[in-house]
């Protein structure tokens, strides 16, 4: 019963059971339903692409850690590289060739994260950096979408065909389709009527359940929403960024629809299509690249939402989640400086408060 050693530790001597790997694991768990649905819906080519992207990310992470002389084991399995690749894969066209996944993983892990010093140091969301780089470098491969062909259904490709598609050796013209955002945008540009376009292409229920064409993991609004609510319930993310983002998109869409219904679709269309929900719950909430204060997070989310809408409505691309998030990532340091919490006992300018005495002494 002797403890005769110098005490070098400071408190607290108890801590939460939370950890970074646990946080990453919970995010992946929240993504699992939407991912499984996407993989089922788009079949073997998508499964190959998903697997290749994740494996490539782990390989690149290991190589980068080796190069930097950091311990590989611990960092490799903190879940961050896996999650980055996972999110990237979900944002890719499901039948994109394997090398899109590999190059994407390389860009995300190496240029998006490791060159800045690894976990926690990157200013931009690595998955979105990769997605945007791929979109600009390989516009064709990154905009070829397919109509859903669920596993085990008649039009689904089998394992071998799927591999051939993933390897890029088999053309996929038979199943080509475009995303809702892309179609509407293209045809509006050609003078089509928005009302007919929407009634032809926009099926809100398909958007909710995810039986529409789109990126690998972005189609099912319902499953993404469930995953997002799970993250909020488990306190992995706060409600602030998703709510501000979705609220702003909905507000702007409603407003513009009221002003000019012939050219602007309503809130439901924007919330259910594209990467809105994936972005709101899983991408804009990336802790590393978003602000830390409550007010900062609200502003960040609102900024993302506004940019998403502006890019969709007036920008050069049909979809703007990746660009919006990256632009707001660039603002994060500024937001963190400008919107800090008020220190207890001080006003917003940092001056001590005036003592407040109750008027009446009870």
């Amino acid at each position: 019963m002797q403890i005769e050693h110098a005490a070098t530790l400071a408190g607290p001597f108890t801590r939460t059971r939370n950890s970074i790997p646990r946080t990453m694991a919970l995010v992946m768990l929240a993504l699992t339903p939407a991912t499984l649905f996407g993989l089922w819906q788009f079949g073997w080519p998508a499964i190959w692409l998903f697997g290749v992207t994740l494996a490539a990310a782990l390989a690149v992470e290991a190589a980068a850690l080796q190069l930097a002389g950091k311990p590989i084991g611990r960092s490799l399995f903190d879940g961050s590289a896996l999650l980055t690749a996972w999110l990237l894969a979900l944002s890719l066209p499901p039948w994109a060739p394997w090398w899109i996944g590999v190059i994407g993983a390389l860009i995300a892990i190496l240029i998006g994260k490791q060159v800045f010093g690894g976990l926690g140091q990157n200013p931009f969301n690595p998955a979105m950096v990769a997605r945007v780089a791929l979109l600009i470098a390989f516009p064709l491969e990154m905009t070829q979408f397919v109509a859903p062909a669920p596993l085990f259904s008649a039009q689904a490709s089998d394992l071998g065909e799927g591999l051939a598609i993933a390897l890029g050796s088999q053309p996929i013209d038979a199943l080509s389709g475009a995303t809702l955002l892309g179609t509407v945008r293209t045809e509006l540009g050609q003078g089509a009527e928005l009302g007919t376009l929407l009634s032809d292409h926009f099926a809100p229920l398909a958007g909710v359940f995810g039986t529409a064409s789109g990126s690998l993991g972005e189609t099912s609004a319902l499953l993404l929403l469930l995953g997002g609510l799970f993250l909020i319930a488990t306190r992995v993310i706060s409600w602030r960024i998703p709510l501000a983002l979705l609220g702003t998109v909905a507000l702007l869409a409603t407003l513009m629809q009221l002003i000019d219904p012939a050219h602007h679709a309503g809130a439901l269309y924007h919330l259910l299509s594209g990467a809105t929900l994936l972005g709101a719950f899983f991408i804009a909430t990336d802790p590393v690249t978003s602000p830390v204060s409550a007010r900062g997070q609200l502003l960040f989310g609102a900024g993302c939402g506004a940019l998403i809408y502006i890019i969709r409505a007036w920008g050069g691309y049909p979809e703007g989640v990746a660009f919006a998030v990256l632009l707001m990532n660039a603002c994060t340091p500024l937001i963190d400086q400008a919107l800090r919490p008020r220190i207890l006992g001080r006003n917003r300018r940092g001056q001590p408060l005036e003592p407040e005495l109750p008027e009446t002494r009870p």
Partner: protein
Amino acid sequence: MIKIHGIRGGIHPEGRKHLSAGQPIEALPLPALLHIPLAQHIGAPAVPLVRRGQQVAKGEMLARAQGAISAPVHASTSGRVLGIGQYPAHHASGLSVPTITLQPDGEERWHERIQGVEDPFALSPEAIAERVAEAGIVGLGGAAFPSGVKLDLRRKYRLHTLIINGSECEPYLSCDDRLMRERPDGVIDGARIMAHALGVERILIALEDNKPEARAALAKAAADWSGIQVVKVPTRYPMGSERHLTQALTGVETPARALTADIGVVVHNPATAFAVHEALRLGRPLVERVVTVSGGAIARPANVRLPLGTPVRDLLAHCGGLSEPEAQLISGGPMMGQPLPSTRVPMVKGSNGILALSAAERARPEPMPCIRCGQCVDVCPCGLVPLELGARIRAGDYEGARARGLTDCMGCGSCAYVCPGAIPLAQLINHAKGELAARARAKQKQAETKRLAEQRSARMEAIKRAKREAMEQRKRELAAKKAAEAAAKDSPAATEEA
């Protein structure tokens, strides 16, 4: 019922109070030796009044207070003064401090002058504060600020409320809970005496909602007195922080660098109130206190009433010893407590708990990089951005950390508790506070040295100048004399004429 206002941030650590909260307060058998440090309080250490070998009675003053902020210490039992020397302090450093060692004679004979007051409310407020100061009472919640000083704030501040802080928000600790359950009349009486000293009519006794038994006992004891309210506050660390509890109960925020007295509120601990009750009613100085002994490595967790100066070793032995030899020994709670380097150190007035944490309880993984999750920002009860403070401190930018509120940190450790990367934020912040304090001292020393050096050179210069002037004066006088002599030689006639 009064409205409970929200406070910023906070955490919900696992309470683990069940380990000891069910254990009634038990008295510790007299230890073989007591080591009573002269500084068990904030402020100047007490000055010894006894000699080596002297027989002292229980409650006899061993050392008197010196200066405005200080407290005397008394003999915890009757016995012989074995020595006045250096002994390891109840502190993480393990450094030795001036300590009186007392060998109990086992008689527990009270000093003959120990006598209570018939009616404390007939005394003037000043007289109460004076008696409390004489009794050596300090804040027993851990801060150990001399209570006499804190009861004498009436003249400087417009006070309206006394808050008895029974929130006991640190995990594991249950000594206040037990005291309030078992001695509610004493606590209420002490609080009323304190309110009389402070000149306030309103007493709020705040308890976290995890202590229903204590709340019921106090409410029953307080039923006869108007002006006393027993209030339930949410269980949330750090509810026991003076400023936060005041804000929760009054809705008013204490300004930075001010006291709660600036907004009319004085906060005392229930154990302090009980000590005031004993000091006034029975005339007994503070010679014992109740302590929680708990933690996964303690064989028999308990709440123990012990004479001040008891070695931690005796206390642990009374509780069945340690079930794990490598346990982490902590004084206080696990959030803000201090690690203790040795079981030889004595128990002092401000120590409210001894914890021995098992390896599983204190598990602290290797720190990972900050992922800026912002949870530390969410939980910080002071509105700081701990992750930024931590990053700046790591980079050596202490001034930058200061500019971002480092000195407004109250050190509650919520940030380090919640950090998923296990980054030792509280340790970094404490280090920076210490470093800034050291720099301020060094700067002051430098300025003082410079001032003295300048004064010295001015003095030397003055001496030189004076010497030179004296020399010149002498030269002039000599020259004048010579001239006069020469003149006298040249014209003796003139001289003769004169």
